[in-house]
C-alpha cells in the first residue's frame, strides 16, 4: 500500500484527487493546503511519497520539493501541474521531482504513482518528448 501526502490548496479538487487515489494499492493519508503546511507536517508523517500541486499560495510546489530534499534527500515527489510546457517539466525534474503529471490526465497520475513507487521516473504521456533519449533512464 502506497501512502501519499497530497499538497493541494483547492478543496474540491483535493477531494476529487483523494477519491481518485483511493485504491487497493494506494491511498492519500495526509492533506496539506500549502507548501509551508506540508513542510511542518512531514517530519511527523509516515508517507511513501508526496503529490504536489505546482501552483500553491505562498511557496510553490517546486520550491517545496527543493526545501523538502534538504531534510529528506530523494524523498519521492510527483508534481501535478496545469502546464505541460517543456521548461516547467524540465525544471521540476531538475529540482528532483520523480514525476510530472498534468492535471488533465487522471489515469497518468495513478500510473505515475505506481511507477515512482517502483523506483522509476515518470513524466506523464507526451511529456517524455522534453527529455533526451536515455535522460530518464538510470535515475
Amino acid at each position, binding site marked *: 500500500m502506497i501512502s501519499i501526502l497530497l499538497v493541494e*490548496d483547492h478543496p474540491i*479538487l483535493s477531494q*476529487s484527487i483523494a477519491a481518485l487515489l483511493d485504491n487497493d494499492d494506494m491511498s492519500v493519508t495526509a492533506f496539506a493546503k500549502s507548501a509551508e503546511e506540508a513542510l511542518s507536517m512531514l517530519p511527523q508523517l509516515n508517507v511513501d511519497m508526496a503529490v504536489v500541486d505546482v*501552483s500553491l499560495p505562498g511557496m510553490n510546489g517546486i520550491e517545496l520539493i527543493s526545501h523538502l530534499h534538504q531534510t529528506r534527500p530523494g524523498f519521492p515527489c510527483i508534481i501535478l501541474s496545469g502546464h505541460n510546457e517543456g521548461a516547467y517539466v524540465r525544471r521540476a525534474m531538475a529540482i528532483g521531482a520523480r514525476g510530472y503529471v498534468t492535471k*488533465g490526465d487522471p489515469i497518468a497520475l495513478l500510473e505515475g504513482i505506481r511507477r515512482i513507487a517502483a523506483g522509476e521516473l515518470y513524466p506523464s504521456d507526451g511529456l517524455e518528448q522534453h527529455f533526451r533519449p536515455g535522460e530518464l533512464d538510470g535515475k
Partner: protein
Amino acid sequence: MTDEHHATEELREARENLQIALSSTALGWGVLDVQTGMLWQDERARAILGLSPDGPLTRDDFMAVVHPDDNELIQSDYERRAAGELDEPIEYRILRPDGETRIIRATGRLRRDDAGRPWQVTGTLQDVTKQRRDSAALQRLTEELEGLVAERTGALQHANTELASARDRFQKIFNANPMPKVIIDIEEGVYIDANPAFIDYMGLTREQVIGRRADELVFQQPIFKNSKELQEEFDQQGRILSVEATFEIRPGDTRTVLMSAARITFDGRGMMLAAITDITERKQAEQQVRQLASELTRAEEKERRRVSGILHDDLQQRLYAIQIELARLHGMLAKGDTEGIEALFNKVSALVPETINTARDLSIDLNPPILEGEGVAEALQWLATKMGREYGLPVRVSAAESFALADQGVRITLFHVVRELLFNVVKHAGQAEVEITLARRGDELEIEVKDDGQGFDARNKQEVTEGHGLTMSRQRLELFGGRMHIVSAPDEGTRAIIAVPLSADHDGNKPGESA
C-alpha cells in the same frame, strides 16, 4: 571841306568806329529809312538774316525772311516803335533761305527828321537761337528735375506716412497681443519695450521692466538645453523658433516656456523681438496624463492578474475535479459499481452548476451588464446589493431620478470610482454603513458616498492618495470634466462628493466650450 562833307565824314567815321566795336561781338546792325523803305545792313546783320552780303535791301527783303507766324508781331512792333511807344528789344523768328528757323533779338530806335517826322530806325540784331534753345532745354530740364524732386518728395512723404502707420500698427499688434512679448536691445541686453501681456505675466510694473536687464527681472535665468547652438542659430539665421526653456520667475515658481525670437532693427539699432508661451500647465497636464496612463496600465495588469487568478485558482481547479470524477466514473462503469456510479454522478451534477456560477460571476464582475444602457442610479443600486451580498457591507442608494448618462465612459468611470470608495469602506472603515445619494446640481450630477466608519485624516494627502488609492479615481473623473472631494476626520466617517457634467462628451468638454 563843306559842312555836309564834314558831316558825312563824321558819320562814316562813326560807322567805322561802331563796326570796330561790333566786330568783337556777334551783333549786326542796320538802318531803315522809314520814308523810302530802303534798308542798310552791315555784313554781320546780313549773314545773321541769311541775306546776300551786298546789293541794296528794302524793308520787303527783310520782311521776306521773317517767319510768317511773326509777321504780325514785326508789323505791330514797327508801328509802336514808329509811334515812339516802344523802345524795348524784341525777339522774333526768321526762316532762313536754307530752311532753318532762327531766333533773333533786335533793338531799334526811331529817329525823326528836323520836321519831326519819322526818319530812320537804327538798331542791332543778334542770333540768340542757341541761347534760347539752351535756355528752353535748361527750362525743360529744370522742370523735369523739379518734377522728379516733387515725385521723390511725395514718395518719401508717402513712405514716411507708411512707416509711421506701420509702426503704429506694429505697436498696436505688439500691445494687443495676448502672448507676452518684449523687445530687447541686443548690445545692451536691456528691455526696450514690453507688451502688457508680458508685464502681467511677470507680475511687475512697466517701470520695473523697461531699461532693466533680463537677469534683474527673474529669480533664475532661463535654462536652454543647447544654449550655445541656439546662440549660433540666432546669430546666423536671425531667429529661433519655439525653443523650450525653464526658469524660476520667483523663488519656487518654476515655469516652462516656449520662446521664439527674431532680430529686428529699431531706430537703427539691432533688437531682439522675443515672444514666450507659458506651457507649464500643459507640461504638467502631459505629465499627469503619462502618470495616469502608467497607473491605468498597472491597474489593467492588476485586473488581469486578478482575472487570471480566478480562472486558475478556482474555475480551472473545478474543471480538473470534474475531469477526475469523470475518469473515476469511467472506472466504476468498467467495474459495474452501480452504487458508486450514482453517488459520483450526483457529485459531478453538483460540481457543474457551481463551476458555471463561478464563470458567470467572473463575467459579470468583469463587465456588469447593468452598465449597458441602465442609468447610474440602477448601476449603483446593483453594486450596493453586490457589496452587501459579498462583503456584508450595508449600502443604501437614494436617487430622485435614474441619471441615464449618454456617455458610457462616464457611467463606467462613476461605477468604478464608487466601487473603489466602497472597497475602501470595507478595507479601512471597520463596521460601517454607507449611504449613496445622487442629485442634480445645476448641469452636474453629484454623487455623495457617506459612511459612518472610523474615517481618516483627509488633510493627510499621502493617506488619501496612497492609503486609499484615490488618485486614479480622481484623474479618471477629471478626464470627463468631473472632480471628487473627500471630507473625513478620525472617528467621524468619510464623505466623498463626486461631480460630473451631465452632458460631458468624450474629451471632457462641457457644451459651449471649444476644444
